C-alpha cells in the first residue's frame, strides 16, 4: 500500500519525477509551473540530487541536457513564454537523442497572455515548436493522479527511446488538489537508458546498426564521445551533405513512429455504442466526461475519447472512432488546434465540431452538452 496524499498537480508531477529516479532539475520561475521547481528545490538536496535555478529558461533547458549527459535523469518545468524559449535547446536534445523530461503547465497566450489561467494552445507548439523535423512524445494527463503516473511514464519513455518527452497539462490541474496514491517503490516499472557494453574504442553514440535506439554513454564514463547539434554520422562527428543525414533523420522519426503501440495511451469512456464522441484531454477531458454522463442521463448515446498521449497522435484510434460515430466534438482551450488533427484522421467520415475558449476559464460540461445535442 503506497502513500495517500493530498497534492497539487504540480507537486504530483515533481513526486512522479522523483519516483522515476530524477536526480537533476534545472528551471526558472514562471507561473503556473513554479511549484514544480519549488518542490524539487526542497527534495533534491535531501536526496543528494542537483537543483539549479538558472538565469533564464534557455539556460535551464541547457543545464538539463548537461545533467542528462552526465548520467542523471533530468527534469525542467515551464509555462507559456518559457516553453517558447526552451525550443531551440529542446531541438538540440531531439537531434542528439538525450533523454530528458520537459513539463509545460499550459497557460493562455500568445506572449504573456493569461499567466494565471489555463490554456491548451501550446499543443501544436509541443509538436512543431523547434525548427526542423523531429520526433515528439507529448503526454497529456487530466487528473492529479495521472500527472504523477504520466510523469513517471514520461521518464520511462525518454529513457527507453532516448529522446526528450514533454508532459503538457493546464493551469487548472496543475494547481488543483486531489487525493493521490504514491505507490511503493517497484510497483511501477522504472526504465533506465540502455548504456553501452562494448569496449570504449568500439563505441559510436549514433550507431544505427545497434537498432533505432543506440545505447547512450554517460560523459566521464570512459566512453569518450563527441556530441554536436550538427547533423552527424554514427560516430557523432558532423557530416555536411550526405545520404546519411536523410537516413538518420528517418531513424529519429522511426523511433517514435514504429513504437506508437507502446507510446500511445488513452481512455475510452462509454464509447462502445456511442453515436457522438467527445475528443478531449486535460481539463477539457474532465468537462467532457461530465458532459457525456449528462448526455447519457438524457438518453443520448455519447462517449469520451481522452488521449493521454497527444503526440504521436492516436491516428488509428481516431480514424476508427470516426467510422463508427456520427460526430466528434472537440472542446479545447485554444481557437482550434488539436481539432485539425482530429479532422485529418476522421477524413470526412463523420462530422467534427469544435468548442473553443481562450478567456482563462475552462469549457464547462454544459457547453459540451449543448454541442452534443446540436450535432447528435
Amino acid at each position, binding site marked *: 500500500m503506497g502513500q495517500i496524499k493530498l497534492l497539487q498537480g504540480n507537486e504530483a508531477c515533481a513526486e512522479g519525477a522523483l519516483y522515476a529516479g530524477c536526480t537533476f532539475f*534545472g528551471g526558472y520561475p514562471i507561473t503556473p509551473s513554479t511549484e514544480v521547481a519549488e518542490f524539487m528545490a526542497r527534495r533534491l*538536496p535531501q536526496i543528494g540530487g*542537483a537543483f539549479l535555478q*538558472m538565469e533564464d529558461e534557455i539556460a*535551464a533547458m541547457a543545464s538539463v541536457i*548537461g545533467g542528462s549527459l552526465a548520467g542523471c535523469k533530468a527534469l525542467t518545468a515551464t509555462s507559456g513564454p518559457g516553453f517558447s524559449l526552451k525550443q531551440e*535547446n529542446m531541438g538540440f536534445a531531439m537531434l542528439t537523442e538525450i533523454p530528458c523530461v520537459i513539463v509545460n503547465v499550459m497557460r493562455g497566450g500568445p506572449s504573456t497572455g493569461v499567466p494565471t489561467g489555463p490554456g491548451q494552445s501550446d499543443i501544436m507548439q509541443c509538436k512543431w515548436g523547434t525548427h526542423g523535423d523531429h520526433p515528439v512524445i507529448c503526454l497529456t494527463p487530466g487528473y492529479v493522479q495521472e500527472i504523477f503516473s504520466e510523469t513517471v511514464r514520461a521518464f520511462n519513455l525518454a529513457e527507453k527511446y532516448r529522446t526528450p518527452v514533454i508532459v503538457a497539462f493546464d493551469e487548472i490541474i496543475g494547481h488543483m488538489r486531489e487525493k493521490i496514491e504514491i505507490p511503493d517503490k517497484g510497483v511501477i516499472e522504472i526504465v533506465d537508458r540502455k548504456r553501452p557494453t562494448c569496449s570504449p574504442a568500439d563505441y559510436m553514440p549514433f550507431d544505427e546498426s545497434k537498432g533505432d535506439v543506440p545505447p547512450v554513454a554517460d560523459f566521464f564514463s570512459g566512453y*569518450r564521445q*563527441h556530441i554536436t*547539434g550538427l547533423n552527424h554520422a554514427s560516430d557523432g562527428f558532423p557530416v555536411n551533405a550526405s545520404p546519411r543525414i536523410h537516413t538518420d533523420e528517418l531513424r529519429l522519426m522511426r523511433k517514435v513512429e514504429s513504437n506508437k503501440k507502446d507510446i500511445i495511451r488513452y481512455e475510452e469512456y462509454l464509447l462502445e455504442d456511442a453515436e457522438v464522441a467527445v475528443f478531449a484531454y486535460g481539463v477539457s477531458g474532465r468537462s467532457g466526461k461530465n458532459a457525456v454522463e449528462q448526455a447519457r442521463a438524457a438518453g443520448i448515446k455519447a462517449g469520451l475519447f481522452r488521449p493521454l498521449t497527444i503526440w504521436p497522435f492516436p491516428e488509428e484510434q481516431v480514424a476508427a472512432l470516426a467510422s463508427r460515430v456520427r460526430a466528434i466534438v472537440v472542446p479545447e482551450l485554444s481557437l482550434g488546434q488539436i481539432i485539425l488533427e482530429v479532422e485529418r484522421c476522421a477524413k470526412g467520415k463523420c462530422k467534427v465540431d469544435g468548442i473553443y475558449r481562450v478567456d482563462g476559464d475552462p469549457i464547462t460540461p454544459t457547453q459540451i452538452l449543448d454541442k452534443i445535442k446540436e450535432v447528435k
Partner: protein
Amino acid sequence: MSFNYDQYIRGGKLPHIWCPGCTYGIVFKSLLRAVDFLKIPKDDIALVSGIGCASRLPGYIDWNTLHTTHGRALPFATGLKMARPDKKVMVVSGDGDATAIGGNHFIHACRRNIDITVIVLNNFIYGMTGGQHSPTTPIGHIATTMPYGNVDPNFNIPDLAKGAGASWVGRGTAYHVPALDKLIIEAMQHKGLSVLEIINACPTTHGRRNKFKSATDQLLWMKDTALPITAFDKLPPEKTAGKFPTGVLYKKEAPEYCETYYGMVERLKKPKEGRA
C-alpha cells in the same frame, strides 16, 4: 623531444576547418600542452562549446566533448559540472558566442563562481558567418554589418568577467605562446570560475578588411600592443593608450558553487540540522 600532440587529437578528424592564417590552431596546441602538464586523464575532462569557429575546437580533441547551441555552452557545462562536480569542465567560446548571444549566461556563470574554466577566443569578429561586427570589434573597424566603420561600443571581456564575479580573470594572446601555456595552466588550476580571454586574429573576415596586409601583421599587432599587467600598471595612462594588459589580471578567493551546494546536501544528511 617534441610534444606528442597526436595522443590528444582524434584520429581522422584533421584537417581542421580554420582558415589559413587563423590563430586558433596556436591556441589549440597550447591547450593540449597545458592539459598534458596538468596530467588530467582524458576521461575526466569535458570540453563544451557553443557555435562559431572557436566552437569547433572540441571536435578535434579526444575528451568528452559537447558542441551545443549558440551562446549556451556555459549552461550546458553548468549541468555537467553540477551532475559530476568531481570532473574537470571547460568551455571554449568566441567573442560573439560568449558575450553577445551568450552574455547572460556568461555573467551568471561568473556570479555563481562554479568551477569551470572558460576560454574566450576573441578575434574581434563573427568569423564563421563572414565578418559581422561583434561586441569586441574595435570602433571604426569595417565589418560586413558595419560597412562604414563600427559605431557599436565594446565589451572589455576581462572587466566584464571581473565585474560579474569571476574569481580568476586573465588575458593572453596567440602571439605570446609560452606565456599562454602558463595562463591556461593557471586558469585550469584555479578553483572557481576562471575566464581567460585569448586575443586572436581572423585575417579572412577581419584583418584584410582593416588594413592588416597579412595574418602576420595581426600577430605583430599583438606583439606591439600587449603589455604584461605588471608593466601596464606602472605606466601613466597616456603611455598605455591603445595598449592592452596581459597576464593574470585579477583573482580572489570565493566560495565555489558546487562545494557550497553539496556542502548544503551534506548538512541536510544530519537530521537535526537539516530542514524537513
